[in-house]
């Protein structure tokens, strides 16, 4: 207990310390928002990756993999591939355009106040959507690691993040994010490698890749249920609960009472609804006929993550901290390399978890496998130290992503909504507004996170990506590469894409489509494969139906002309 507390406290103090140190550099409005654009590509790349690797990457992928199998890894593929799309279509032109925020881009490119307001709404929607699962993850991790109530983790992370965002602005946070990328990478890589060496490879291979179901180990399996839970027994077995000895037939669903539940050695582990009963060989198949391994769901998820990353406001604002277009490209390639390194490790936890932690499968707490695996797999001090390391990494994950999202919210509101028509307002006033908005901007999702304990992290994050891919992605791709785009067309596409994405998700929640039994369920749970093409189509048709935009030569020049041409117009716009 004491080792993880020390580790988490150390990461938290270092975070606040670096944030406070960074604030000394925040002298101007430009510093506060985009760090004076003076960061080197490696600093920027580490900061982008640090901001990006959230609870979904650090805990969610391993947990989902343990629960449903290898198809969970498509999520990691999509998370990394998103930067390839960003590199190919957005990075350099967006940086060259020289705007502070996404609404700035929308208005600057299409000269429409209305579109700017729409972009502001989309930014706030995506950020808030994304912030809720981060805080939820923090709440769960606090209760898993420290035994504290769910609300405590949310409140602690919310306060720490609000403090250093409000005090440090972006400059401080760039260093913090870069630091936290390395915390997360070390925290996931070192225990994974150490455990594989300690265990001498992957144990219990029949359960992982062979014909076996997950079974209670030779000493039997004892789990502790916080509340009563319904599970399905794949094979007939006896079990012991607080109410005495029970019998289950093969395939029978039983509601277990809260408290201790014991299974005899070798008994097939009973599973909660949503966790498929599968042999190791089935578990290791990356594509299935249904569920989260169905090809339709995989393609929709890949589309959402591939195209959604470029529409995440808290990530894109980081690209403005590059000095010029080629540097923005260089940063993105480095991000791809850093993520390639990180994403090697979550599958280790998912695999070892399946082999060694059947109790988590039974209780449905697979999301905590990264946190619990070290002490389960390696009894004694070794496991405790490694467990403290992953706990510190998990908190770095919540804090870095939450802070990036909060900066995006605070920057957008204080600059776009509150700061409206007051560009001459002094830095002191701006900074005060930024701080007030940061506090309010964190309070709202924190309250929601307290209320939505039962909603799954990876699904919530998938929705944020779907929304981003259905609104900002077509706006960027067409806005940058298609001069014929009009403000009306862009607005139509953003509204159509956003409405269909949100509508499908809402309908899916109402009918309970997350069980994923048919093609319609795949689309209602991850609507990107429908909503993204629709948004593109609506933007194109809407633009062609309205008058061609007059005189956008200057915008195209700003987006695409390389640096160093000696054109004064350009150099001023990009300064």
């Amino acid at each position, binding site marked *: 207990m004491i080792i993880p507390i020390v580790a988490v406290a150390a990461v938290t103090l270092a975070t606040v310390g670096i944030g406070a140190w960074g604030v000394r550099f925040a002298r101007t409005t430009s510093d506060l928002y985009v760090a004076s654009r003076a960061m080197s590509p490696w600093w920027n790349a580490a900061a982008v990756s640090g901001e990006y690797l959230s609870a979904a990457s650090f805990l969610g992928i391993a947990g989902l993999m343990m629960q449903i199998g290898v198809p969970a890894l498509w999520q990691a593929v999509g998370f990394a591939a998103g930067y390839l799309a960003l590199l190919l279509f957005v990075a350099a032109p967006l940086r060259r355009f020289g705007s502070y925020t996404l609404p700035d881009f929308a208005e600057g490119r299409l000269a429409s106040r209305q579109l700017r307001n729409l972009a502001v709404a989309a930014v706030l929607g995506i950020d808030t959507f994304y912030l809720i699962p981060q805080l939820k993850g923090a709440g769960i991790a606090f209760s898993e690691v420290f035994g504290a109530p769910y609300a405590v983790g949310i409140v602690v992370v919310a306060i720490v993040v609000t403090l250093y965002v409000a005090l440090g602005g972006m400059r401080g946070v760039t260093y913090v994010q870069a630091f936290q990328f390395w915390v997360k990478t070390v925290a996931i890589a070192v225990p994974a490698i150490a455990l594989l060496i300690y265990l001498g490879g992957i144990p219990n291979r029949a359960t992982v890749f062979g014909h076996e179901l997950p079974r209670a180990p030779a000493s039997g399996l004892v789990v502790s249920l916080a509340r009563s839970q319904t599970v399905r027994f794949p094979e007939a077995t006896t079990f012991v609960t607080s109410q005495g000895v029970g019998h289950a037939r093969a395939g029978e669903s039983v509601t277990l009472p809260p408290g201790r539940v014991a299974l005899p050695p070798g008994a097939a582990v009973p599973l909660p609804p949503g966790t498929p009963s599968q042999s190791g060989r089935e578990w290791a198949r990356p*594509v299935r006929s249904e569920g989260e391994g169905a090809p339709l769901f995989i393609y929709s998820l890949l589309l959402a993550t591939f195209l959604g990353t470029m529409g995440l406001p808290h990530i894109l604002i980081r690209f403005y901290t590059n000095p010029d277009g080629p540097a923005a*490209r260089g940063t993105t390639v480095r991000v791809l390399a850093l993520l390639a390194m990180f994403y090697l490790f979550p599958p280790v936890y998912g695999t070892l978890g399946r082999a060694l932690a059947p109790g988590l499968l039974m209780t449905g707490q697979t999301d905590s496998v990264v946190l619990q695996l070290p002490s389960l797999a390696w009894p004694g001090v070794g496991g405790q130290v490694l467990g403290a390391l992953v706990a510190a990494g998990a908190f770095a994950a919540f804090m870095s992503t939450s802070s990036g999202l909060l900066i995006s919210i605070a920057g957008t509101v204080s600059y776009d909504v509150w700061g409206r028509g007051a560009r001459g307002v002094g830095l002191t006033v701006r900074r005060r507004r930024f701080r007030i908005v940061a506090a309010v901007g964190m309070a709202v999702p924190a309250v929601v996170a307290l209320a939505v304990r039962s909603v799954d992290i990876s699904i919530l994050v998938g929705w944020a990506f779907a929304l981003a891919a259905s609104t900002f992605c077509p706006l960027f791709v067409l806005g940058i590469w298609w001069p014929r785009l009009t403000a009306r067309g862009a607005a139509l596409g953003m509204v159509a894409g956003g409405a269909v994405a949100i509508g499908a998700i809402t309908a899916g929640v109402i009918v309970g489509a997350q069980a994923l039994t048919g093609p319609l369920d795949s689309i209602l749970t991850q609507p990107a494969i429908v909503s993204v093409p629709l948004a593109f189509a609506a933007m194109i048709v809407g633009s062609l139906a309205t008058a061609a935009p007059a005189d956008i030569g200057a915008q195209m020049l700003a987006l695409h002309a390389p640096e160093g041409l000696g054109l004064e117009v350009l150099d001023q716009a990009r300064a």
Partner: protein
Amino acid sequence: MSDTAAAARRTPRDELAEETAHGQLYLTRLRRAQLELSLLGLLAFGGLVGSLPLLFVLVPSLEHIHVFGIPLPAVLVAVPLFPMFVAIGAIYHRRADALDESFRDLIRDE
């Protein structure tokens, strides 16, 4: 002074700065070349990742091949795609910068 003589003395840089039809043509050419390069990168990515789920569906016997004791399909999803993204990205980065550079040469030299 005739119009053609005046046009002859104007450099591509002036054309670009003044957004003349000529200047816009230069820029449109650059934009199209960059877009073609990006679409080529997209094709490489789409072919790589998009074909993988299909491959697993069409050739289920791949799971009988083991690499370090792990079924091949699981290995293919977990490891090689990430370095390939980096490779596609790095090649794109170099060629996109080169397109920018040749545009700079065009504008400066004439």
